[in-house]
């Protein structure tokens, strides 16, 4: 025990050293004696001094003193620490009265009166004060001659001080000790000791700076230039405590002297930033103390003062074996899905969603997180959402293929960029959440009761590669399955198509190298909204058509050629959800987007479901891939959004539609469709490079669209699979190329 105490003391030494050395220099002498005085055998002090090694004096002296105390300690139990203080006080009294016998075992008499140790200590300090004041000049009048005869003595002081944890400063005048001590000339002076709780740093400081005569202070500064009073600061009054997880190795946690157990939990979470900090909040953590002497172990309450509790349980100091045991609840705090979360917070989503989707997370993790990493960010912490937006923008996904942003849009964007935030139109693209699609749905079960939050803005992740998107779409379940990576297959037919020389004519807008040449169907029953969306599509220079209800939307979609549908959810005649379901059903029946690889696997289910009659689409040529349906909803109900996703929407935008978001959606989904329709894309690119005359065709959008559709012949349909039957008319060149 003594050994480990010595270690602990050494660990604390640096802190103590600076504190102590600012105190009277003579105190070192006195202290050494103080440690010895309680002993019935004064010679022991000498012994221990003599036997003290130059390297580890502390442990030796400590063992000596501790042994002595041990006699009492065993009986004292929990209150040993305060008894120490009392003992020291009495030692002082004894010294003052010059009667050593009064000291001897006095402490044990009122061992258990020390229920309020600090008050007692203060009392002692106060009692002591008048005397102290009277002789304070004496203590410091001759600091230079007061130097410790042996360097270790200084440490002794710290040791003794350490034992009496609460004694912050001790000033002894030791007339009988110290060979060169000039204070010998005043042998009748009582020994002074100022007993202050260590946590009262202010008091210490005040005492040090006011009680010391200026000359003495100056002198002390001369001698201890590096350890002058100015070096005392509250953070020096920290200590380290051992903690461990059950069955794991212990570790030291630095706490402040006056920290509560609750503060310690925070420190522990910082220390265990990975294993605990990521999944637990500090109130989840409980600390168990396992006292010595086979006493019942106990869980510490958050309000208990850590230092004092430790001192009470482990008089003489806590050893590594006595580390506090960290307990955490078995049920882990639900973990957020890492990917979407960052972005949700990037957009400074309203907090109420945060409570639905993301558990409160420990501050340390948040503080360390970078905006670009999928870490936990409380809303608002990320002060620079745009950085992240840029980093995750869709353009990254299609690097190398996506030209610069459209000119009309860029003005808009610049304008918006000046704003601190995106506004309250939040959208969510669950399909790019890297497979976390199911999570919102799950959470929705919990969140449906309170008014749910707007949807979650999710710029696409850069790593949302094409195959990812594809697989996610499959996960959404409504769109028909398709191959994970459409590109390779698309590349080959492209050549044959190029060879046939049928150059597509594209709207001039496409030629600015911005938004992919997509065709958008706007489904919106409110003429105001419709007008706005149309105007916006015009600005983006993409083709669009409109539908005012779900039935009309399905009808228009059946004509083919649409890449993107902006679908209002609540529509007359047929709701957006019904329309979406119908579109998905038809897509499935007609195997749209089914490529050979997946066609074989899904063949069994398709066999009996051969589209027939009115369900059969005119030609699959115009349906390269499942259309992207972005739901538009003014609803603030989360359930509505999930319903939309469940119906087969790929994404949703909240009304009022933020045009920045809308542009982004058009871009990203358009780019994705362009990847799927790679040959069309390439043609468009080649065409835009080689043919400038199409600019004249600005007005001829309808014609252009028709042509375009024709050119985007069914690469998706698979000549070898069951789908080939659906694409009979257009199969010619592709068949050669593909097979």
């Amino acid at each position: 025990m003594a050994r480990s105490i010595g270690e602990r003391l050494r660990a604390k030494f640096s802190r103590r050293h600076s504190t102590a050395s600012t105190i009277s220099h003579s105190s070192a002498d006195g202290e050494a004696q103080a440690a010895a005085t309680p002993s019935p055998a004064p010679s022991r002090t000498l012994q221990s001094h003599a036997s003290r090694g130059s390297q580890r004096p502390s442990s030796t002296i400590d063992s000596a003193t501790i042994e002595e105390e041990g006699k009492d300690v065993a009986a004292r139990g929990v209150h040993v620490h305060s008894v120490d203080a009392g003992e020291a006080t009495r030692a002082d009294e004894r010294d003052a009265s010059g009667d050593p016998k009064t000291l001897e075992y006095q402490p044990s008499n009122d061992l258990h009166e020390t229920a309020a140790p600090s008050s007692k200590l203060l009392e002692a300090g106060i009692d002591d004060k008048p005397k102290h004041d009277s002789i304070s000049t004496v203590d410091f009048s001759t600091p230079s001659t007061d130097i410790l005869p042996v360097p270790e003595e200084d440490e002794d002081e710290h040791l003794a001080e350490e034992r009496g944890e609460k004694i912050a400063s001790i000033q002894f005048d030791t007339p009988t000790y110290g060979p060169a001590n000039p204070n010998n000339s005043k042998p009748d002076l009582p020994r002074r000791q100022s007993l202050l709780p260590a946590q009262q740093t202010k008091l210490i400081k005040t005492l040090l700076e006011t009680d010391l005569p200026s000359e003495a202070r100056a002198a002390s500064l001369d001698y201890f230039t590096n350890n002058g009073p100015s070096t005392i600061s509250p953070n020096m009054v920290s200590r380290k405590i051992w903690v461990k997880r059950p069955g794991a190795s212990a570790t030291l946690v630095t706490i402040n002297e006056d920290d509560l157990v609750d503060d310690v939990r925070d420190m522990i979470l910082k220390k265990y930033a990975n294993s605990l900090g990521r999944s637990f909040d500090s109130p989840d953590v409980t600390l168990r103390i396992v006292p010595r002497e086979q006493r019942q172990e106990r869980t510490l309450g958050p309000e208990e003062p850590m230092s004092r509790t430790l001192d009470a349980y482990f008089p003489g100091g806590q050893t590594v074996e006595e580390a506090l045991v960290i307990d955490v609840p078995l049920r882990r705090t639900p973990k957020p899905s890492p990917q979407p979360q960052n972005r949700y917070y990037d957009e400074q989503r309203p907090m109420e969603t945060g409570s639905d989707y993301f558990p409160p997370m420990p501050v340390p993790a948040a503080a360390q997180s970078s905006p670009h990493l999928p870490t936990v960010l409380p809303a608002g912490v990320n002060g620079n959402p745009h950085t992240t937006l840029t980093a995750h923008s869709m353009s990254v996904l299609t690097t190398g293929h996506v030209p610069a942003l459209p000119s009309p849009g860029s003005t808009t964007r610049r304008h918006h960029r000046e704003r601190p935030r995106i506004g309250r139109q939040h959208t969510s693209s669950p399909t790019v959440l890297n497979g976390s699609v199911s999570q919102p749905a799950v959470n929705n079960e919990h969140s449906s009761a309170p008014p749910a939050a707007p949807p979650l803005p999710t710029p696409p992740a850069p790593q949302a590669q094409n195959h990812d998107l594809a697989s996610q779409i499959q996960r959404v379940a409504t769109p028909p399955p398709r191959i994970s990576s459409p590109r390779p297959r698309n590349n080959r037919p492209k050549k044959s198509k190029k060879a046939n020389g049928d150059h597509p004519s594209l709207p001039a807008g496409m030629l600015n190298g911005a938004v992919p040449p997509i065709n958008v169907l706007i489904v919106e029953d409110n003429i105001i909204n419709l007008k706005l969306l149309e105007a916006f599509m015009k600005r983006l220079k993409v083709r669009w058509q409109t539908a005012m209800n779900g039935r009309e939307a399905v009808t228009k979609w059946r004509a083919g050629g649409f890449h993107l549908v902006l679908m209002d959810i609540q529509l007359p005649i047929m709701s957006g959800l019904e329309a979406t379901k119908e579109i998905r059903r038809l897509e499935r029946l007609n195997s749209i987007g089914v490529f050979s690889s997946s066609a074989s696997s899904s063949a069994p289910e398709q066999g009996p479901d051969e589209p027939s009659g009115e369900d059969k689409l005119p030609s699959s040529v115009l349906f390269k891939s499942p259309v992207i349906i972005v739901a538009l909803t003014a609803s603030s109900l989360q359930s509505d959004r999930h319903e939309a996703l469940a119906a087969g929407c790929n994404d949703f935008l909240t009304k009022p539609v933020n045009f920045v978001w809308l542009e982004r959606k058009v871009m990203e989904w358009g780019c994705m469709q362009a990847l799927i329709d790679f040959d069309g894309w390439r043609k468009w690119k080649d065409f835009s490079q080689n043919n400038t005359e199409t600019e004249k065709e600005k007005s001829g959008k309808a014609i252009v669209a028709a042509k375009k559709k024709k050119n985007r012949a069914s690469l998706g349909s698979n000549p070898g699979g069951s789908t080939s039957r659906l694409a009979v008319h257009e199969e010619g060149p592709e068949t050669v190329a593909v097979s």
Partner: protein
Amino acid sequence: MPDTHSHEEDRSEEGSVGLPDLGDSIDAMTFEQILEMDDDEDEREFSRSIVFGFFEQAEQTFKKMDDALEERDLATLSSLGHFLKGSSATLGLTKVKDSCEKIQHYGQLKDEAGTTDEPDEDKCLERIKDTLVAVKEEYAEVEKVLKKFYA
């Protein structure tokens, strides 16, 4: 939810620059993006057509709501509430939008947030009646502001 909204709107209003003061019942950012669609900032032809189109629509809708209220037609009230909610949201007329949403929810026999069922039809009709009065006032306010803006 309404709290969050108003809070957010406050922030977005603070954040927008150079927008005419449209009062606190209009979400500046949303409205601004419509203004950005104008080719000519003096004429403001496009946004004017949108805004005045909305006036027309709102007044028609209010009239239909009055009629439906008379007929105690909750379903129609709900759908009218939804309808006007869409366009008022698009224009950033947040107060009108919120009230319309309430009407929509009341019409579905739910509480104002649309989360709890409120089976009492009379209660819902009463609430719609009150909300309708409120939303007309809110509308009158934004109409005044907007007409002044386009004057």
